[in-house]
């Protein structure tokens, strides 16, 4: 997150630069500017969605990258100087951005078959889900054999049987949820328990037990680095990162899906006041179709958001998916979850900072 923060400072500069550069070409209605997370996922989206979309419609796609800073969207809306047409936003920003009039409200169900997206929580008021990013308990199968492997988040907390440090993201969301799962809450019940009185205290209390053994990481790269260099014996990690780490280092990191996992849902949304809303809707519709979704999932190793795309996945990819353990997954979306983090995010983050510093 910090690396990305720094990178985003550069991106801000580049955005200005590209805004000036694009002033000439953006006049054409045949160009859409899309902002996403950049990097490997951004490249995969270009290959699987943007290139075929341009071939089909003739609409050029220009991409930009950001790190989910809502402030950057807000600045464009407030100054009336739109650089982006379509933004990739996570579930919380989708809700906040929609409420605050930064993203255009669109009735996606009238454009796309909503039943295919029910499993990932359906459409937002403004955004349509295009990417699911699950994260769970990861260990190295070359260091721990299948028989000795941890099976649950209770095992993750058990430092007597499995000595060594534990990797966790340096951010309260996902960590508090996992703490509750390890305290015996069923993944699907986590948002309700967290939002109920005493839920946050319970999560922090559980986290306190493991705290001396936690190494906090600040970027997805770091999460894998810690596991690959044996700095930690197990850790929380995102599926896409695990796939990339395994592929590029020919290693055998494994996610224990049955222990319970969290799934972030990422949406595509149209910026409020974009003069190319019609084309933007066309692009998002295309991005959510069966084939582009399957190809994107194949490239990234993520599960597709569109249910009908599962049939097109390769055997290898399907074997990697948590399909058998869907009931062990907690979607980071839905009204209870979103409202909880939207109202309490700042104060929990402060509490988390004082908690980790002590």
């Amino acid at each position, binding site marked *: 997150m*910090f*690396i990305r*923060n*720094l990178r*985003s400072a550069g991106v801000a500069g580049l955005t200005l630069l590209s805004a000036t550069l694009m002033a000439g070409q953006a006049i054409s209605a045949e160009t859409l500017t899309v902002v996403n997370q950049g990097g490997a996922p951004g490249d995969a989206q270009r290959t699987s969605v943007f290139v075929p979309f341009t071939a089909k419609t003739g609409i050029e796609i220009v991409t930009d990258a950001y*790190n*989910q*800073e*809502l*402030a*950057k969207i*807000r600045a464009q809306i407030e100054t009336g100087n739109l650089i982006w047409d379509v933004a990739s936003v996570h579930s919380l920003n989708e809700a*906040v951005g929609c*409420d*605050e*009039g*930064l993203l255009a409200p669109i009735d996606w169900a009238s454009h796309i078959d909503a039943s295919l997206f029910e499993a990932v929580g359906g459409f937002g008021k403004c955004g349509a889900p295009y990417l699911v990013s699950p994260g769970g308990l990861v260990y190295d199968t070359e260091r721990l054999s299948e028989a000795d492997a941890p099976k649950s988040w209770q095992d993750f907390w058990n430092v007597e049987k499995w000595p060594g440090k534990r990797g966790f993201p*340096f951010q309260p969301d996902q960590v508090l949820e996992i703490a509750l799962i390890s305290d015996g809450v069923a993944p699907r019940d986590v948002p309700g328990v967290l939002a109920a009185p005493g839920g946050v205290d319970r999560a922090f209390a559980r986290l306190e037990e493991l705290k001396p053994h936690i*190494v*906090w990481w*600040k970027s997805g790269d770091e999460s894998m*680095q810690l596991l690959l*260099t*044996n*700095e930690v014996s197990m850790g929380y990690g995102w599926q896409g990162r695990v796939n990339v780490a395994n592929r590029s280092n020919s290693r055998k990191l494994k996610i224990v899906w049955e222990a319970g996992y969290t799934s972030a849902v990422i949406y595509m949304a149209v910026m409020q006041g974009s003069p190319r809303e019609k084309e933007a809707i066309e692009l998002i519709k295309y991005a959510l179709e069966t084939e582009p979704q399957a190809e994107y999932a194949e490239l990234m190793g993520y599960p597709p958001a569109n249910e009908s795309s599962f049939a097109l996945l390769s055997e290898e990819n399907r074997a990697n998916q948590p399909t058998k353990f869907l009931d062990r997954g907690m979607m980071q979306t839905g009204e209870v979850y979103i*409202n909880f983090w*939207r*109202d*309490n*995010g*700042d*104060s929990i*983050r*402060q*509490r988390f*900072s*004082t*908690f*980790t*510093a002590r």
Partner: protein
Amino acid sequence: MDASLNTVGETLTAKADLRSLVRRAERRHFTTMLALMAPSVVFVALLFVVPILLFLFRSIDNAEIPRMLPQTVVAIDSWTQGDLPDEPVYAALASDLLALKDTPAAAVLGRRLNFAVPGYRGLITKTVRGLPETLVAPAKTTLVEIDEKWLDPVYWATLKRQSGRLTDFYLLTATDLTRDLDGSIESVSDDQAIFMSLYARTLYTAIGVTVLCLLIGYPVAAMMASARPAVANWLLMLVLVPFWTSLLVRTTAWVVLLQNEGVVNKLLLYFNFIDEPLKLMFNTTGVFIAMVHVLLPYMILPLYSVMKGISPVHLRAASSLGATPATVFRTVYLPLTIPGVAAGCTLVFVLSVGFYVTPALVGGPRDQMIGYFIAYFTNSAVNWGLASALGVFLILLIAAIYLALGKLVGFDKLKVR
């Protein structure tokens, strides 16, 4: 008599003429100078001073609430805390909120109030959504039916406190203070108190890094200044190449070197200096190592330029008068290099106060600095009031240290040459 008086008078007039001529010439000179400087002054003012002042103003600015709740801020003024407000206040709020229905302003208001009380955002959203198109008296019943939180004085007290055009809310928050129900200032709860310890840590890290940089940089600069030109050039390159390399690259290189199975630990283990890997990363040690390395050129370069200007004649003179090398250093060399020391220390200190990437990458949770939170509140939480309040105190902190340093060594020596 008369004649001589006349001469004196003439001389006086001539003097006055000359004086006014000189003054006129000076004025002309000054005007030209101003005209020449004007573009850069305007440039700096418009692109640097004005934006900073505007952003700093956000730390006390409270335009949003009076704008969005015009009737409520008037009505709530007469309410004295302790009890629940009367019907007119409820009615004013209901009518203000109704005007916000189906506009983004409701969410913006919710976000603003949520800074003060977590959960206020949800309350506003829910209330705005639940209000009927036409209000029926009593408004109190309507609001309480939508959410019983409207019976909790906390929400009203917050509203009253945030009803002015200016607010001290952000400045208080940035110093771990809050106002309780009847408006008196108190410390926030233990698990929310974060910023004072962050300032302390930022200060401690910055001072530590500055001192270490000085201890390491001083001999290096002295050696460079006294070396043969060819050698000095090579040494200068060794300082400049890392100086030109990106901060991120250098920090990441330290990650590779310092981690448990990193180069440093591998070497130490191989030569049997240690039995198990040293913890060099994710703690204060790592932060200091990486920050000192990153900032060292900022110490060496000003020191070097000052030392280069010191004539060896002074040192030789002192020695020939019988001073020992230690005395020469203490009484001649060190005092002459003080401007370089002051400039280097100021540079390194000011730069390290704002650091957050390096502590984030090689530090642990105990090593995060105030810069991280300023970035977080600016970019992610979009709480610009708090971000600028934190900035205000950071600027004050730096100014205070600069003034103290200035008193200590003299302001003329603090110039960076």
